[in-house]
């Protein structure tokens, strides 16, 4: 990991990085239908998602306004049932909203067809999941290649780029290993390499440390930190306040609505003595 962490100039992480201000966010989310500027990676306006659970309508999101600028490192936090998984599925273009707008890189994706969404997932989004979600029978190299396969890139070019991505997460020596021959931390690093291989606009992590022990967790969080420091837009969904506290900005969801949206210092200041979010 060390060569990865030290490659390139590293800004110090005091926790007070420039993030979008509340006023800027309000300005971009308050005008329905307006195309956000290019520096806004994600803008949602009144995002709603209802589920029909056997006749009963569950309102998972009840109008979420979120704006995330390029290069931000944002945690989306909330207890289970707060709607954070639903929001992450919508941001990740795995699902479509019941109502509201979702703009990704200035493009309205909430009205896109399934095929267009698949293309957006392929080009713009890199997923990192709690359960890694690697193909069990494929090697690390092939797993990392997968997004490039669906991008229609030739085999030789794919291999080169996948090997490069694995090198960036310090797994060059594990390329031909299958997931069951790798440790949890290594698997998650393969998943990160896969997420990054197609140079996505956002890295979208869903409880990335949920299946890892604490030392491996901090190792993975360091990887995210470094990526964010290098300018990668990172969005991390978690229910753990101490994990959320790694991000520069924390959006807290409650009952399908945004409860708070602060820089890290404001978020940590509100934490109770046990480190739990009130």
């Amino acid at each position, binding site marked *: 990991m060390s060569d990865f962490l030290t490659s390139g100039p590293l800004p110090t992480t005091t926790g007070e990085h420039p993030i979008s201000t509340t006023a800027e966010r309000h300005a971009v989310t308050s005008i329905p239908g307006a195309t956000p500027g290019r520096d806004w990676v994600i803008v949602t306006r009144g995002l709603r998602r209802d589920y029909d659970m056997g006749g009963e309508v569950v309102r998972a999101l009840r109008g979420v306004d979120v704006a995330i600028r390029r290069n931000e490192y944002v945690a989306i936090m909330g207890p289970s049932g707060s709607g954070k998984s639903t929001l992450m*599925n919508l941001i990740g273009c795995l699902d479509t909203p019941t109502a509201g707008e979702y703009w990704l890189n200035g493009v309205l994706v909430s009205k896109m067809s399934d095929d267009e969404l*698949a293309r957006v997932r392929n080009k713009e989004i890199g997923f990192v999941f709690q359960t890694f*979600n*690697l*193909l069990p029978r494929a090697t690390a190299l092939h797993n990392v290649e997968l*997004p490039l396969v*669906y991008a229609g890139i*030739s085999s030789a070019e794919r291999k080169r780029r996948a090997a490069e991505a694995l090198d960036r997460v310090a797994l060059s020596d594990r390329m031909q290993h299958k997931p069951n021959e790798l440790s949890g931390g290594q698997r998650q690093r393969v998943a990160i390499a*896969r997420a990054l291989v197609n140079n996505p606009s956002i890295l979208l992590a869903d409880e990335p440390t949920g299946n890892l022990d604490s030392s491996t967790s901090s190792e993975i969080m360091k990887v995210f930190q470094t990526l964010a420091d290098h300018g990668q837009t990172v969005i991390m969904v978690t229910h753990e306040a101490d994990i959320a506290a790694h991000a520069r900005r924390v959006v807290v969801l409650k009952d399908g609505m945004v409860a708070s949206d602060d820089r890290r210092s404001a978020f940590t200041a509100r934490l109770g003595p046990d480190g739990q979010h009130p």
Partner: protein
Amino acid sequence: MLLADVLRTALIQIRANKLRSFFTLLGIMVSVAFLIAVIAIIQGMNAYVKENVASAMIGSNTFQVRRTPLNLAPVSDDQWDVIQRRPRVTADDAAVVEKAVPNAEAVSLQSGWPTPMVDIHWRNRTLGDVLIFGVTAPYQVVQDYRIGAGRPLSELDVRDRRNVIVIGAAVAEKLFDDIDPIGRDVRILGEPFTVIGVNQRKGRVLGQSFDGFILMPISRFEMLYGRRSTTTVSVKVPTAEDVAPAMAQVEEALRVTRGLRPGEPNDFSLETADALIAFWKTLTRVLFAVVPAIVSIGIVVGGIVIMNIMLMSVSERTHEIGIRKAVGARARDIQRQFLAESVALATLGGLVGVASGWGFASLIATASPLPARVTSWSVALAIALGAGVGIVFGVYPARRAARLDPVLAMRAD
């Protein structure tokens, strides 16, 4: 997604589940093997009948004037009654035929149907139930018999009603072993006959020997069996093209001789080897109709097996489909992947089926006299059939896979 990647992914999947893949394509394999083998056997039999049976029974470039038709197909009772009332074919008819076909190579008269069977004795040996024909000298030429030892029957033998016979190779072998049969005296129906010639072997056709016979001057034959039974006139013409005009000439001449009015049916039958071949073709036509029916049942069952296995595979790999969709696979990429898998499986089944059918056919070709021939069109048909089954029965599972919701799919184990 590149086509090469689609195929590669399909083959990796098939290879990863070797045993399952094998059982999946077993149905297609067996059906295709059956198709290939049966078509090869039918084709072989056709060729065999054309080359051997027909000419062995009638002779090449030859036709016959018969009282009863050489029809192997069933005849109705009414037709049979009419045939039974026909006049006999006699030496007089043979004379008419000879005059009608001046370019004939040979015209022979032989004892007609049914051919009697006799016991032939030599010293203390007896050979039972040997076919005995009364013939004129040209019969040897008409039937394409070649004399192996001694001499054929002559005009004089017929005119003088000599007690002489020519025997087939099988009779010579069984009765005399290694002893030279020429000049030996044998007894038939209590009367003495001298063997003057042995014909060369013609071989066995469909299990029936064409070498187990006795040829006797027809005049002598009639002394044994009486003159009341019918005879058959055989005409050999120089080339195949001469057969049809010669037959027309004979038909014309016989109708005139027999005083048939226009519109009245012939009271004799004209037959060629083609009649045999035609009959054989009607037989194999039935086979050609039945075989596809059996094969299509097998193929449909094989297709259903493939569909089931693919559906199972889709539900087993739901999680994988979710992952693929998450990283950017479109519905059509997933559909193509699963379709490629079922098509590859079915085509593989077709190929293995062709190979085993081919093997079976060549086994038959070596172990039996049937020259089983695998034709290229049947191979093409079999492979196309396999691929077609893969597409038809692969579409539904592939659609199901393609329509899976990525979020729900990733939640599956």
